[in-house]
């Protein structure tokens, strides 16, 4: 890709778009990691790299089994570290190969140099992050700080809450990441253990269905090939870097519309997929709302249902995509609530109000929304290192949110640590 390239073509409508394959799907009892492996197989990925680290290593395991069973053919390279793992796929993407890699926690961090450059060079890839605490040695449970670290670099980033959503989102991710209007990498975050290792019934679509949704990756004139002599990553210094950053910014801005397009098509072809950016749960007449990501949805939904039975008007908004951040959608979903409790499975030490990452992001998204009647925003830090968040915890948090809505006992900007020993 040259630094001066600004014209990013809109893809011609693929003839595939109009063919609706018959909905033939197999129901299988599989884990989140296995669902990701199925998506990778169905996307017909060309190059996969691996380096073991739990909980992501389960994906590596399922992919190698599929290859061994003859169900899937691809280049599968076990690298000598995550850094090489992500470097290999980055360059494979430059020559036009569809690629996949994944990692967890410190493994993802060890790849960081490659991660930053992949986004900067506009090389699409889909990565799975099996969320894991950043060691000190010995912490394997889920925290979101690993994946969140790429949030400012141009990576698209989402959290899924079920194995079905993991499979579906991976297919959508390929379509959007490889869209010539976007060409950005995409990370799919799956909560370690809670999603990577727990099984549920998943509809695994047929190859024909997937083929009707997901076109082949085509880099066009950006493809590195002897017949197409171009330079990728030229030395640009201050002469061009700002323009390149600007191009990434424009691609990231376009990502929302391309995602909406992809979800619309996915919903039409697969009969599921839902609203692209957020999931609204019992929000219709909600007076207060909880907001969270990933498998936090499980205890929260159960608690919200119970509280609804008791007549409490509480709802839940699950943020599915963190990048692009669903600013408009959240402004809309939270327009009528008096207070919001954001449950973060992450930390952002020293940040504004010492809140979680999602809470602060939401606060800035809502700030210009309606100047007078801002909902109060409370930040809850919960479930770090994989600690259980019970429905009881959720009910207690909700009580604090109702109190804030009624102006009782709390400052709107408070941050609460849930279930931490003093």
């Amino acid at each position, binding site marked *: 890709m040259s630094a001066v390239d600004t014209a990013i073509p809109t893809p011609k409508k693929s003839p595939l778009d109009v063919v609706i394959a018959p909905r033939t799907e197999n129901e299988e009892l599989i884990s989140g990691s296995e669902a990701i492996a199925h998506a990778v197989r169905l996307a017909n990925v060309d190059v996969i790299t691996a*380096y*073991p*680290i*739990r909980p992501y*290593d389960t994906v*590596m*395991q399922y992919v*190698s*089994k599929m*290859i*061994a069973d003859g169900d899937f053919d691809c280049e599968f390279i*076990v690298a*000598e*570290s*995550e850094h090489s793992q992500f470097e290999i796929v980055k360059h494979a993407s430059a020559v036009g190969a569809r690629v996949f890699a994944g990692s967890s926690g*410190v493994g993802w961090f*060890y790849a960081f140099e490659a991660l930053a450059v992949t986004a900067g060079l506009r090389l699409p890839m889909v990565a799975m992050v099996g969320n894991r605490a950043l*060691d000190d*040695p010995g912490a394997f449970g889920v925290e979101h700080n690993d994946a969140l670290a790429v949030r400012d670099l141009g990576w698209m980033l989402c959290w899924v809450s079920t194995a079905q959503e993991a499979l579906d989102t991976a297919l959508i991710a390929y379509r959007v990441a490889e869209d010539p209007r976007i060409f950005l990498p995409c990370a799919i975050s799956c909560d370690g253990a809670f999603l990577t290792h727990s099984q549920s019934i998943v509809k695994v679509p047929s190859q024909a269905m997937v083929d009707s949704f997901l076109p082949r990756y085509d880099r066009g004139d950006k493809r590195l090939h002897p017949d197409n002599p171009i330079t990728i990553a030229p030395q640009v210094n201050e002469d061009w870097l700002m323009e390149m950053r600007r191009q990434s910014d424009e691609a990231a801005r376009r990502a929302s519309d391309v995602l909406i397009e992809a979800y619309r098509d996915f919903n039409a072809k697969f009969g599921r997929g839902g609203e692209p950016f957020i999931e609204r749960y019992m929000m219709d007449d909600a007076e207060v709302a909880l907001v969270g990501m990933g498998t936090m949805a499980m205890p929260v939904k159960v608690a919200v249902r119970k509280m609804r039975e008791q007549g409490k008007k509480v709802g839940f908004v699950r943020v599915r995509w963190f990048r692009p951040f669903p600013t408009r959608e959240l402004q809309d979903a939270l327009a009528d609530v008096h207070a919001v409790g954001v449950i973060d499975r992450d930390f952002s030490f020293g940040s504004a109000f010492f809140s979680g990452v999602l809470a602060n992001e939401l606060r800035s998204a809502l700030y210009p929304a309606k100047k007078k009647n801002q909902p109060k925003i409370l930040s809850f830090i919960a479930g770090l290192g994989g600690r259980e968040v019970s429905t009881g915890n959720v009910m207690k948090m909700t009580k604090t949110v109702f109190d804030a809505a009624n102006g009782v006992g709390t400052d709107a900007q408070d941050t609460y640590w849930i279930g931490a020993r003093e």
Partner: protein
Amino acid sequence: MNAPSPTLLAAKDFKSDTKPVWCPGCGDYGVLTLLTRALADLALRPENVAVVSGIGCSSRMPAYMNCYGFHGVHGRALAVATGLKVARPDLTVIATGGDGDGYSIGGNHFIHACRRNVDLTYIVMDNHVYGMTKGQSSPTTEPDWDNALMPGGTGVRPFQPLVIALASGANFVARAFSGDITGTAEIVAQAIKAPGFAFVEIMSPCVTFRPEQREWKELARPSPVPPTDDPARAARRLMTDDGFNIGVLYTGNRKPYQPATGQERKPLNALAQGFAL
């Protein structure tokens, strides 16, 4: 090397109260026993010894020992050990870990630690597998090892740690077997005494993911030839080696890296003055 201490300690004095979580039969138990025995035999004291590791089953070693310990991040044991040794040359610094930790993600440190020749001892418990992450092929895994995670094998030529250590300038190169407690304790003691970078590759079976490695005790045998100080001869020996000859292969006489402590330096603020605006 530290001066021998007045009261001699036993191997058990170098073991901590933490019970190892290794699988029953894991070769690493033997390494814990023989390493603590070597330290006792050398009349060292726990407060003068530091054991540094990365991540892996074998890298748990510092937790099970009673001396200074550092359980670092995956692949970086030698970087930490180098920093420690140059800052505290009085300590006996030992790095421990596995073949994944040392030859894969940490492979570059291995080469450069040999080149730099800091006075360290590096013990690798090689089981030809990533044990802790449940049995994936490592750089020393045989290319045709068929397993659930790498069906049909990797087809990739194994890493040759002794050849690389020799070629990169390690001052002491040995192969040992964790089942031979007495012989390996002796080799490790020699490695600790040897000046410069000493590398001991210990074949240490992973009974869980490589149960066939139990056979190593039949196969490992003392090398029929004594150590050499001629790298060419050592290299030739490795080229004809079946991997089961144990003993010290090579002892060199390269001058160890000397940290520049106590040297006259221009005071920093004098330098800063020159740039003041």
